[in-house]
C-alpha cells in the first residue's frame, strides 16, 4: 500500500486564475459550492421565500388588487375568515373531495396495476390507455367531461336512459356535481398512481411467487400475502402524494362548472382565487390561504405520525 501525500491537482490552468484564490483551500471549496448554488437560491428566495413572507404581511392589511387600501388591520382578516360560512364550506368541500377521490384513486390504481402485472395480454396497450389521460391538460379533460355529463345529449345520461333510469343534471345539480368532478378526476389522474404501483409490483422478486405456488398458494393468496405487504411503502407514498394533490383541487372543478361558484363544489383554492381576483380583496385572500396552509400542515403532521407508527410496528 503506497501512501502518497495526496496532492490535490487543480485543473484550472495557472494557479493564479483560480477563483477565490485569496481564500484557503477549504474556504475556497465552500465558496465554489455556494457559487453553484446561487442561481437556485436566488430563484428560491425570489419566487418562494419572499412571496410567502409577503403573503403573511398582506394577510394583516386591507390591500386591494386595485392598489387601494394596504393599511394594517391586525387580525381582522383572520377573524373574518374564521367567521365566514363560505370559507368553512369551501374548506369542507375540499376535505370531502379529498376523501371521495383518494379512496378510488388508490384502489382503482392498485386494481389496474394488479391486472397488468399478472400478465394481461397486450401490456403496452393497457399501460398506454391507463396512463394516457394523465397527460392531458385540465382544460381538455374538463371539456371532455362537460360533454359526457351534458344533461340533454351527454353519454352519461344516455347510459342512464338505456338502463331505464331518470337523467341527471350531473354538473348542475348540487347533489351530484361533486361526484361528477370526482369521477372525472379519477379517470384523469389514476394513471399516475397506477404507474407507481406497477413499478413497485415489478420490483417484487419472482422467486417469492414461485416458492409460494410450490407451497400451494393460489393467485389470490399470493396477492394477499406477498404482493400487498410489499406494496406498503408504495401505498404510503401514493397516499401522501394523493392527499396533497386532492387538497389542491381547483382547475377541473372550476372549469367543469364554467367558473360558476357552486356551494357544493367551491374548493378552498377557488375561494382564495375569488376573494383575491374576483372581489379584489388581496388581504382577505392571503388570510384564507394561510388558514388553508394551517390545514395542510395539520394533514402533513398527521400523516408523518401515522407513517412513523407503521414503521415502528
Amino acid at each position: 500500500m503506497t501512501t502518497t501525500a495526496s496532492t490535490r491537482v487543480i485543473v484550472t490552468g495557472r494557479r493564479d486564475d483560480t477563483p477565490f484564490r485569496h481564500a484557503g483551500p477549504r474556504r475556497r471549496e465552500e465558496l465554489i459550492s455556494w457559487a453553484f448554488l446561487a442561481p437556485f437560491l436566488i430563484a428560491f428566495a425570489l419566487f418562494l421565500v419572499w412571496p410567502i413572507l409577503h403573503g403573511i404581511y398582506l394577510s394583516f392589511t386591507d390591500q386591494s388588487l386595485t392598489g387601494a387600501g394596504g393599511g394594517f388591520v391586525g387580525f381582522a382578516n383572520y377573524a373574518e375568515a374564521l367567521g365566514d360560512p363560505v370559507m368553512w364550506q369551501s374548506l369542507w368541500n375540499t376535505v370531502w373531495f379529498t376523501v371521495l377521490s383518494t379512496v378510488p384513486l388508490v384502489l382503482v390504481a392498485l386494481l389496474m396495476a394488479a391486472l397488468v402485472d399478472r400478465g394481461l395480454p397486450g401490456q403496452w396497450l393497457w399501460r398506454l390507455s391507463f396512463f394516457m389521460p394523465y397527460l392531458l391538460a385540465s382544460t381538455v379533460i374538463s371539456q371532455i367531461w362537460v360533454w359526457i355529463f351534458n344533461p340533454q345529449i351527454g353519454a352519461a345520461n344516455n347510459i342512464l336512459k338505456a338502463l331505464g333510469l331518470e337523467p341527471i343534471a350531473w354538473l348542475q345539480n348540487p347533489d351530484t356535481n361533486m361526484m361528477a368532478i370526482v369521477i372525472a378526476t379519477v379517470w384523469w389522474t389514476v394513471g399516475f398512481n397506477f404507474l407507481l404501483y406497477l413499478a413497485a409490483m415489478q420490483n417484487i422478486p419472482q422467486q417469492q411467487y414461485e416458492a409460494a405456488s410450490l407451497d400451494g398458494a393460489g393467485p389470490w393468496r399470493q396477492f394477499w400475502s406477498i404482493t400487498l405487504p410489499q406494496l406498503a411503502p408504495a401505498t404510503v407514498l401514493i397516499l401522501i402524494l394523493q392527499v396533497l394533490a386532492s387538497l389542491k383541487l381547483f382547475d377541473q372543478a372550476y372549469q367543469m362548472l364554467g367558473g360558476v361558484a357552486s356551494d357544493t363544489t367551491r374548493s378552498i383554492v377557488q375561494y382564495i382565487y375569488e376573494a383575491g381576483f374576483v372581489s379584489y380583496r388581496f388581504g382577505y385572500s392571503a388570510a384564507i390561504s394561510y388558514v388553508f396552509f394551517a390545514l395542510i400542515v395539520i394533514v402533513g403532521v398527521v400523516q408523518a405520525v401515522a407513517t412513523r407508527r407503521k414503521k415502528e410496528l
Partner: protein
Amino acid sequence: MTPPLDLSRRQFLAAASLAAGTALLAGCAPGTASGSTTQTLQFWHLLSGGDGVTMSSLLDKVNAAQDAYRIRPTVLAWGSPYYTKLAMAGTGGRAPDVAIMHATRVPGWAPGGLLDSWDLDRLAELGVDESTFPAPIWQKGFAGDRLFSVALDAHPFVLMYNTDICDAAGQLDSDGRLRETSSPEEFLEQLRAVAGSAEGHALSYGYLGDGAQMWRLFYGLYAQHDLAIELPVGGKMGIDKDAAVEVLEFMRTLLDGEIAATQNDYGTAVAEFATGKSGMFMTGVWELRTMQNAGIPFDATMIPTLYGTPAVYADSHSFVLPHQSDADPQRRELTYRFVADMLKGSFGWAEAGHVPAYLPVTTSPEYDDLVPQAHYAEAAEHVVYDPEAWFTGSGSNFQGEFGAAVQGVLLSGDDPAAAIDRFERRVNALLAQPNPADPEGTWKP
C-alpha cells in the same frame, strides 16, 4: 430556407440574434409608425367569437378612415379574468389608453381611482352628448356628476322566435310579428300553442349552472313590476319578496318539460333553437349572428311585458379611460376622437345584434331596414341594469350567487321563498364588506 449571403453558421446566428434583439427593443419603444406622426392607441376589450369579428372590422374601418391614430386592440377572455387583468394593468401603471367595460362593472371601479372621468365638453364638441343617447343608457355612465363610461351599445335579453313554427301555431299577427301578450297566463297560453307545432320544446331557455342566465330573466321580469332591488352601502338588500317569489314561480312553470326542458344548459338551448326544433328562445342579442348563420327563419322582439311595466334586462359595452398617472394630452385627445368615431360608425355593431347606443345611428332610415335588429331597438328605452354595488354586474360573483340560490327552485321545485332568503343572506354578507377599491369608504363622486 437557406440563409442569404455567404455566412458561416456562427456569423449567421450572431447576426440573427442581433436582429432579433433590435426588434425586441424596438417593440418597447412607444408605437409610432415609421416616417409619420400616427399615434398608436392601446385598446383592450373582451369581445370574442362573432362579436370579436364585428369589432375587428369596425376597428379596421376607423383605422383606415384617418391617419392621426392607429388602434392596437388586445382581446382578453370575457368575464372576471378580463377585469382582473385590466385592474392589475391600471394598478401597475401600464393601463391601455382606452378599454371596454360592462357599464354595470363601472360603479365598483370608479371609487378606486382606476378610471379617469370623461370631459363632457370635449365629448360634446365631437357630437357626443346627452341628446344623442337614450336617457337610461347615458345616465348609467355617471357616478355622481362625473361621467365614467360612454356606452357603445345596449345588449338586452330578448325573445327570438322561429317564424315558421309560430306561424303554424297561429301566433303571428298580420305583420308577421309575434302576437303580443300582456300577462303570464296569456304568454303561457301562447307557448302551449307553439309547443303543438314545434318538434322540440316551445321555448329554449338554458340556465343550468349559469347564474347570469337565471338572473337576466329573473331581474327583467322583476323590473316589470316597476320595482328595483336596492343595495345600500353598509345596509341591507331591499327586495320585494312577493314579487320575487312570483317571478320564480313563473320561471318554474316555464320549465315543466312541455314548454321548456327542465334540465337545459345554455349551449343545448342555443343548439335546440338553431336547429329549428323549438319555437322560441330567450337569450341575449349576442346570439343573433349564430342564428343567422344557422339559416333558420326567425325574428326577435322584447321579452313580453307580463307584469305591467315594460322593462328589459340589459348591459352595455362602454368605453372607459383606465387611469394614467400622467396621461399624454395628445394621446388622450386622440382617444376622444377614436371613441366618437366608433360611436358614429356603430351601425356595423348592430350586425352583431347589439343595439347601438348612439341615437343618430338607430334613428337613421337604414336602421329601420335592419331586421330583426329594428324590431327590438325600442328595448334601449326600457333597459334595466344590475342594481348598483361594487360586487354586481356582468361576470361578477353576484349573478353566480343568485344562480346558486335559485337553481334548486327551477330544477327541482324547491321553495322559492327559501331561495330568495338565502340569496338575501349572501348579498347582505357582501354588502357588509367595504368596496375593495375604496376600503376606507372615503370616495365621493
